């Protein structure tokens, strides 16, 4: 069994997200979300998650559609999207490599991993490989300090990473 267990993100190209609408399956999910809260605004974070799961990132078009669906000002939605670091406002690669750079992970050797990744992929933090496969991000504490160093790929944690394990992981992420 290989180390990698992460599925690639579905990333919609920018031109398809200029003007979006929610299909039936998404509408059903939105109704479920709305039922959990007494206000429509409270559904904003979950709805943004739903959109990011579907399209991989939050374009201005997605923000407008979300705002219209929840009767919110587009500026409010944009303010929320840019406040939280996990909402992607540009199209990411198929795999978001998020390297924890906070103290406990650093004490256990994160900088070596980051260097290894930069060399191997030829990109720096905040950049995407030309083939659109990987986006490299430096993130703050992931809350798994006991298993440092930690790397999150899309939704999955990979803990106790070493350069060798990293190589195996990258090879497995196709």
């Amino acid at each position, binding site marked *: 069994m290989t180390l990698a267990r992460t599925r690639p993100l579905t990333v919609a190209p920018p031109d398809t997200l200029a003007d979006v609408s929610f299909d039936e399956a998404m509408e059903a999910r939105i109704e479920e979300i709305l039922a959990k*809260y007494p206000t429509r605004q409270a559904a904003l*974070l979950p709805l943004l998650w739903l959109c990011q799961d579907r399209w991989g990132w939050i374009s201005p078009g997605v923000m407008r559609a979300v705002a219209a669906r929840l009767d919110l000002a587009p500026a409010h939605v944009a303010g*929320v999207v840019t406040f939280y670091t996990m909402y992607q406002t540009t199209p990411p690669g198929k795999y978001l490599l998020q390297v924890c750079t*906070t103290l*406990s992970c650093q004490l256990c050797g994160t900088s070596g991993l980051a260097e290894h990744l930069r060399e191997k992929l030829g990109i720096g933090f905040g950049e995407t490989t030309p083939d659109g496969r990987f986006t490299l991000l430096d993130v703050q504490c*992931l*809350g798994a*300090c006991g298993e440092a160093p930690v790397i999150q790929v899309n939704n999955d944690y990979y803990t106790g990473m070493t350069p060798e394990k990293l190589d195996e992981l990258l090879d497995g992420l196709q």
Partner: protein
Amino acid sequence: MKPILLRARGEENSRSINTYLRLGGYAALKRALIMDPADVREEVKNSGLRGRGGAGFPAGVKWGFVPQSTTRPRYLICNADESEPGTFKDREIIHTEPHMLLEGIIIASYAIGANTAYIYIRGEFWTEAEILERAIAEACRKKYLGKDILRTGFDIDIHVHRGAGAYICGEETALIESIEGKRGQPRLKPPFPAVVGLFGCPTVVNNVETLACVPHIIEHGAEWFAGIGRDVRNSGPKLYGVSGHVEKPGVYELPMGTTFREIIYEHAGGIRGGKKLKAFIPGGSSCPVLPADRVDIPADFDSVAEAGSMLGSGGIIVMDETVDMVWALENLLTFYAHESCGQCTPCREGSDWALDIVRRIRAGHGQPRDLEALERISRHASQGMTICPLGDAFCGPIASFLKHFRHEFEDYIARAEPLPPKKLPVLPVRSDRGPFGI
């Protein structure tokens, strides 16, 4: 001590409701539901249970602040944001026995008269959110959740609400703003959430570990709980998360008041590679750092406070003799400069400014007056100068690093070469990101 909160660690299918029931789970709920809610609150108050999220406020007292004669809905929020660097204990509870947390939430909701509870979980914990969703579905099927649970007439729903990457949302009013669909910017207090909280209604926010203690208090009694640990002000089992330079990092469940020496050397296997301990942060990165000679103090709320730090969340970050303390402070300040929500000027500007100074010191361009400037920042951005405690969270490390390891900063400055004047930063600037974190 036999583990209580992590009793099922390592057991097969420990997350399933059947395992939980086999271990005696949901018995406390049945007992609580035939008690008067006021008695449940009293029992928790008598147990001495103090908030495990960082502030250490007595949980039963917090519950007592909720007005009982209100017609508005009341809410319970479980804070599973776990964003303080060095803290990873709540994740362990969720991975081991999510139903223990759910039972605690249901009992707490009953005690304060809430019919809806939200679990606010950090966005990165996708796996953990899935675990909780599955557990909630199981509990609904067995009628521990939903309408008229166990035919007592009590209704309770639990919803999982995922955050999206913001340290500040661990602060309870920022968390409430975040559930309401806004930027996570803390509110002024008072009014406190117990009176005006989520959607303007009375709300209690409790940490995962705090709520996981509740079923055990109801089942075994306040006296039993108070008997674990040092005294009634520092009672119960505590999850200590040890990370950094130790042989066996991880979460250890021990009686409140176990000494740091025992935690670090006996349970976490000592310092990695046989090196010497230099310093440790006792309870998550915002707690003032302590030098190695304080390792014999008991890890409880009052003892750590006496030693000039805080027990915080119980996340112990251990640093060995090789660690450059200027580097360590730079790392922590990078975190806080990134995570300041930007609402209050002393915190927004102070965290960036302090980071720039420490960065410059480490780059070999420090000046003698830099330490004074750092101290001034730490005075003016803490202790009530900001809406929420994030100001204190980055000022505590600055003040304590300078107090205990000043010579390391002075050594850097003594070796420094002056910067060419044109490169001197005039204004504090965001060092690592553009505006809006993009």
